[in-house]
């Protein structure tokens, strides 16, 4: 395994594994509350953080984390207070974040939009020592929240109204979900890139759902898919010299297609087993009682 001989590849693979775990772990709650595209929006906002990092010569990962967390909090506030014009406010936030990033990076000494591309689509060779430290710390926070509070986050994402009546701190948990998603975007930024991070949050969950009936199994399989495609995509990108983000996302979509194809006969077999286990009284087909015809008694 010559791939492990290079320090930059060791860092890249470690980052990829952490992205493979954290992105689906947060994504499952976003999918459950039908906010699958929220990660995409946060990714746009994070660009301003990257631009600020360049301008101030601070770590782009930490700056992206800071700005996307602020953006996510703002998004939650918009969701609470702006009921009718919420989507417009969110659109302004997303595109403002993107435009801000482009503007700031051009203002930075020696900066140009060219610098952005490694953040937009991911780049393995640029994962630095300090990036890895930041990614590890941020990923630890994400795993702690998504696994430690899974019962609470499940309840809030499944039925917000009921969760409030059980006394759960619904607003706090919503805010925590948004902040955790924002942190995940910063974790994934180096490997899959800001524009593709949302795919790794959503598609593994959608792929896992093809096989599962429970939330717990969906969570486990989605993370397993995430880690597999992240490692597979990183290795492929090393050997074939292709962009890692795009490779990982295409692999994920491939996994979705394969699992969907596998799931159809599986579901059919499961339905047959269920029917055999509980013989119902319902006849399988509509039958017209003897002595009557279809549509009898109907006429002008």
């Amino acid at each position: 395994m010559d791939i492990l001989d290079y320090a930059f590849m060791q860092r890249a693979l470690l980052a990829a594994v952490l992205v493979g775990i954290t992105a689906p772990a947060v994504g499952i709650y976003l999918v459950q509350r039908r906010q699958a595209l929220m990660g995409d929006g946060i990714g746009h906002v994070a660009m301003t953080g990257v631009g600020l990092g360049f301008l101030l010569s601070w770590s782009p990962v930490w700056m992206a984390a800071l700005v996307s967390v602020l953006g996510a909090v703002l998004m939650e506030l918009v969701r609470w207070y702006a009921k009718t014009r919420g989507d417009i406010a969110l659109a302004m936030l997303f595109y403002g974040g993107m435009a801000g990033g482009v503007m700031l990076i051009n203002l930075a000494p020696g900066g140009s939009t060219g610098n952005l591309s490694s953040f937009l689509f991911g780049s393995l060779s640029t994962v630095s020592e300090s990036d890895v430290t930041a990614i590890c710390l941020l990923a630890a926070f994400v795993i702690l929240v998504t696994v430690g509070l899974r019962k609470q986050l499940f309840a809030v994402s499944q039925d917000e109204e009921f969760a409030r009546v059980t006394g759960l701190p619904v607003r706090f948990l919503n805010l925590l979900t948004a902040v955790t998603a924002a942190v995940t975007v910063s974790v994934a930024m180096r490997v899959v890139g800001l524009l593709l991070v949302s795919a790794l949050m959503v598609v593994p969950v959608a792929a896992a759902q093809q096989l599962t009936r429970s939330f717990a199994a969906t969570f486990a399989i989605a993370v397993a898919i995430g880690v597999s495609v992240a490692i597979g995509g990183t290795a492929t990108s090393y050997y074939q010299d292709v962009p890692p983000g795009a490779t990982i996302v295409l692999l994920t979509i491939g996994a979705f297609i394969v699992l969907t194809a596998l799931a159809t006969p599986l579901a059919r077999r499961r339905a047959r087993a269920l029917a055999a286990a509980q013989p119902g009284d319902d006849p399988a087909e509509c039958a017209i009682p003897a002595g009557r015809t279809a549509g009898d008694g109907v006429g002008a």
Partner: protein
Amino acid sequence: MTTEPVISLRGVRAELGSRPVLRGIDLTVHRGEVVALLGANGSGKSTAVRGVIGQVPVTAGEIELFGTPRHRFRDWARVGYVPQRTTAAGGVPATVAEVVSSGRLARTRFGLFRKADREAVRHALHLVGMADRAKDSVDALSGGQHQRVLIARALAAAPDLLIMDEPMAGVDLASQEVLAETLRHQVSEGATVLLVLHELGPLEPLIDRAVVLRDGCVVHDGPPPKAVGQHALPGHDHVHPHAPAGAEPIRTGLLI
């Protein structure tokens, strides 16, 4: 009954948008009582219940739960809530047991489930006759079975007060009987119940008192009115969409 009130509303007003939905409602439910809140669509009965649990902001009046003003009430494990059934399940598969478990969270510390909590979830499923479906996905259930799961979720915390919003709407006959039996069991154990209903139906023998709302006002508070004439026939539909606005009847299907 002179026992302490479990739910108490005094002069409660609420608006949706700028339209007044509740125009000063008084409603008291005492310990051990089963009270039905009746009224037509748009009479404010759902809003009243959602006001009690804090889902709808009230613009005036006082709401108390177990003698505590609602905004200071924290003991939510004592309240079991069954929302009006929606078909919108989550975007991720979940089993019956997973959904019912979220009803137990109020009794756990930091969401850690002990043996007693898992036992309570099993018991709640048993009460609604869904124990054998615990590992099935909720997406695979019929409307009536789904409703039974939502009731099991409310029962999982062993609440003293059950609040149900249209528990019988769109529920098949077999499930209606199971629900009536479940409710009878809860009442015999001393539970207090507030139900929003479109009509009394199979729950009629359980109900101690009926409160009828019309246009956001209480127009009847007393023994459950008896259904007469064709209103008493099972399956009678009480929606009168063509009634002129001015001469609107009290669309409960009940003569009072």
